């Protein structure tokens, strides 16, 4: 099975609001908010780390989920976000020059 690579699309706007990302699509200015799990995946979407590794290292230890089921959910999420132009997905690593910078954590006092 081929591995999936994900990268934050460079045209989006994003900010972490109390642990949840708000993201505005660069395509049509639609606003999305990601829950805490999706936010972890978004923040780890550097184009170089395969999705299965992100799930294994960042999701499974925190949420106590079955790795296979978590990966399936993560793939569904990634492809859904890709349709809205807020994530890029590929079977190969994605050039880091196409990414936006790491969104600062924001104030979450």
């Amino acid at each position, binding site marked *: 099975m081929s591995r999936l690579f994900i990268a934050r699309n460079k045209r989006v*706007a994003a900010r972490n609001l109390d642990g949840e990302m708000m993201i505005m699509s660069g395509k049509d200015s639609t606003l999305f908010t990601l829950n805490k799990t999706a936010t972890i995946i978004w923040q780890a979407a550097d184009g170089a780390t395969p999705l299965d590794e992100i799930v294994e290292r960042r999701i499974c230890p925190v949420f106590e989920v079955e790795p296979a089921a978590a990966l399936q959910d993560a793939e569904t999420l990634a492809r859904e976000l890709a349709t809205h132009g807020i994530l890029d997905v590929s079977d190969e690593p994605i050039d880091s020059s196409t990414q936006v910078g790491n*969104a600062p954590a924001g104030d979450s006092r």
Partner: protein
Amino acid sequence: MSGLMQEVTVKALALGIPMSVQLDLTYRCNERCVHCYLDHDDHGEMTTAEIKHLLDEMAEAGVFILTLSGGEIFLRKDFFEILEHARELTFCVKLKTNAILIRELEAARIRDLGVESIQISIYSHRPEVHDAITLVPGSLKRSINAIRFLKSQGLKVRIANVLMIQNAEDYPGVRALADELGTEFTLDPTVTPMMDGNRSILSLGVDTTALQRVFRDATLVRDVEEFCAVSSPADDDALHSLPCSAGHTSCYVSPYGDLYPCVQFPLPCGNVRQERFADIWRHSEQLKEVRAIRVKDLSGCSQCTHVTSCSRCPGLAYLEGNMRGPSTQDCEKSFARTGIPSVNLQSKKPSTANLIQIRMPPALAAVSA
């Protein structure tokens, strides 16, 4: 505002996060609009490094929407360097400009940097009217050319039309122009006093008749009857609500680093050259005072018929001398909309007029009617 944006804003309010900031990069301008509220001399603008540092601080504080405005933003030679830095920090960037310095190259770069939208001031579809307001011959043509360049790059453009005596009849033409160019259109009937408090430019604002025409134009307000209806009396929730988002989830920073609740609310709250942005946002006594105000605290307004539907601007009230008082321009708008004078307007009625009415003999009154 979309439902989700409203939800996010409510959350930001609860967390004390400044969701939205307008940053003016310069007050210098290549137009000299007759109604402009700014002093265009440079009194020591922030440097590139200072602005980048401020952007870092604002991102860290949670600012999401960043509006870059002026003056004319493209007069800053470092504009694209600032914009690039803002986008690296993943702000949702909106621009306000007259656009006369935007050509194909600039439009392409704006697209590449993922700017959300560009607002451009157009005062009339007729060059002789627009150019007489900007005092720059050929400015309408150049702004329209720029809009075409931006649209050809697939960018979202909004035409902003300030309504004044000089262009009161032209907004349908500007709207048609916006349709032709494929842009959004907003009409603003408010002329703002100068930031130093000088109110002389208010004489350029339109009168009640012109406002009535706008408020009864179904193409602008959709449902005229609903828009012009007198609002229902304020309940307890309305009286305990916030008068405005200024200072609560949004603020304004001048080219000199002064932080205010809003561009239209020049109450000095601190300077980002001397204090961290987040420290001013959290600890400024002035912002705390603004945040403490609820609708029930507004003198006159809290008892006014229009309290739940009025567009009262606390900044304009502040410029009139009392941030808890009415803003007469908004009282006039409420009057033009509904035909009912606000509490503030009633209190301003000359007493002699009342006396004449009282003394008018019945027979004469009948003739007058």
